[in-house]
């Protein structure tokens, strides 16, 4: 466990030294500030449009931070040949995968915390109220979402040749599942066989990432998602993360380290 934590600390340090987070945070802040400065019919309490915009930017920023960070972890170690001294420590390949995953996940968690603090300040300054539990729930579910994404990208990084192609494919896959995943069953009904069965299987196999996106619940103040459902969604996310991490370990074990 200590080895995994030590490895994850290195990843966190690497992430806060890079400029990705700062650039995206400043960009989110700037766009939200510009949108917030607009005056709509002399009403300064209108906040939902701002919440929606800010949450969208947070989701996009977090996705790009997570994909960007995790896509280069294992390829960079191989390219710089630092993987050899690392594995000679001795550190097993499973520990490398787990360390990289936890590092990226914790770093994304820190970034999310900053983003949601900013969202809280923006919303609070307008609405004069802080729906803390609602934000915490949104943050937690987004963090679970990122766990699945990071695990998926780590798997991609041992399957695909270059970090760029891996990142592109993963972003397309994640956005595709996120936006279209829950419609697959309805599309399947309208298709002839064997496409129908294929789409149905796909519908049940893919991780339903849209569950973790409760932006509409937060924006429209629809109250909290039942905690039991939150817990089940967390288990679901954890199961898929473990599945992808296991696949990463299996592929990484068989992969030659020298390029």
């Amino acid at each position, binding site marked *: 466990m200590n080895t995994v934590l030590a490895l994850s600390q290195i990843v966190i340090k690497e992430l806060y030294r890079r400029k990705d987070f700062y650039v995206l945070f400043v960009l989110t802040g700037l766009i939200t500030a510009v949108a917030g400065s*607009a005056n*709509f*019919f*002399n*009403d300064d*309490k*209108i*906040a*939902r*449009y701002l919440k929606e915009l800010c949450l969208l930017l947070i989701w996009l920023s977090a996705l790009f931070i997570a994909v960007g960070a995790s896509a280069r972890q294992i390829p960079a170690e191989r390219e710089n040949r630092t993987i050899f001294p690392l594995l000679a420590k001795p550190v097993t390949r499973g520990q490398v995968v787990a360390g990289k995953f936890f590092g990226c996940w914790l770093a994304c968690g820190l970034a999310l915390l900053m983003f949601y603090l900013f969202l809280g300040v923006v919303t609070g300054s307008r609405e004069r109220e802080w729906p803390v539990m609602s934000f915490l729930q949104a943050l937690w*579910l987004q963090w679970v979402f990122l766990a699945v994404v990071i695990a998926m990208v780590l798997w991609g990084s041992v399957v695909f040749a270059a970090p760029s192609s891996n990142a592109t494919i993963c972003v397309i896959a994640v956005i595709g599942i996120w936006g279209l995943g*829950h*419609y697959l*069953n*309805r599309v399947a009904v309208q298709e002839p066989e064997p496409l129908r069965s294929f789409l149905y299987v796909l*519908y*049940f196999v893919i991780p*339903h990432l*849209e*569950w*973790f*996106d*409760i932006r*509409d*619940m937060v*924006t*429209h*103040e*629809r109250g909290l*998602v*039942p905690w039991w*459902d939150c817990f*089940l*969604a967390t288990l679901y996310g954890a199961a898929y993360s473990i599945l992808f991490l296991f696949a990463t370990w299996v592929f990484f074990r068989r992969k030659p380290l020298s390029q």
Partner: protein
Amino acid sequence: MRRISPVYVIALLAVVCFTLGTCLEPRAAKWDARSQSSSLLTILLGDGKRMFANHFFVKADVYFHNGYYPSWMDQGMETVDTAHLTEEGHDELAEAKHEKAMDFLGQPSDWIERFGRNFYPSTHEHLDKPGDAGEILPWLRLSADMDPQRIETYTVGAFWLRLKMGKVDEAEQFLREGLRANPDSYAILLDLGRLYDENRHEAAHARNLWELGLRRWHEQEQAHKKPDETVLLGLLIHLADLEERQGNLEQALQYREKELSLTPQPDYVKKEIENLRAKLEAKTAGATNQKGGKPSEK
């Protein structure tokens, strides 16, 4: 042969560019309307911004339903009618129709769909909390900026500003902005008249606006533009009410009679006409009695 320094070539090319720029700029400004626009959005999007106008208007409806709204996938099956955005009072028939239209989710077909419904707004409700009414306004403002010819945006926006938020000045400003962009709009004139009648209590001003609205409606009918008959009905109802209140019963009767061919409730209008006729007869009889020196009381 002596070589020319590249610096001179660059300077020459810069001068040529500058000269061409100054010659062509006034001509280029006349090439299309887009370049003459002062709005950055118009310059960037051109006529494509009308497409966004519709998107933003729908967005206002999404906010009105607190996020419960058919997605593009559900909308492919049926388009949502946005008339409920300006519904006043309690019309059970319209409400039932709206409830039916908004029951787009149906029963979940599997456990994934059933469980997924816990994570997004999946129950039909409206923006009813006091203080929340303003939340739809940014989208209407954007929609009006994107397509100033979209009349519904102004009427819906003014409805919310005036009746839900009590911002009469802002509502008038928004309607006038719409009227400047659409001088022939009888629908905006109807709403502007209502604002003057119901909020400012200026009956004469309201009458002028509604009469102008009637004229605009008939002009468009003559031009075979198929104007909206429900707006004509609205104009006639409000004019009839106003004239009745002002004591111009003959004028009110004329409007009610015109109303009869358009109304979905002819029995009610017939009753109104009978009442008006009775009042008019009583008035005429009273006037004759007064002229003949016989007070009606006797």
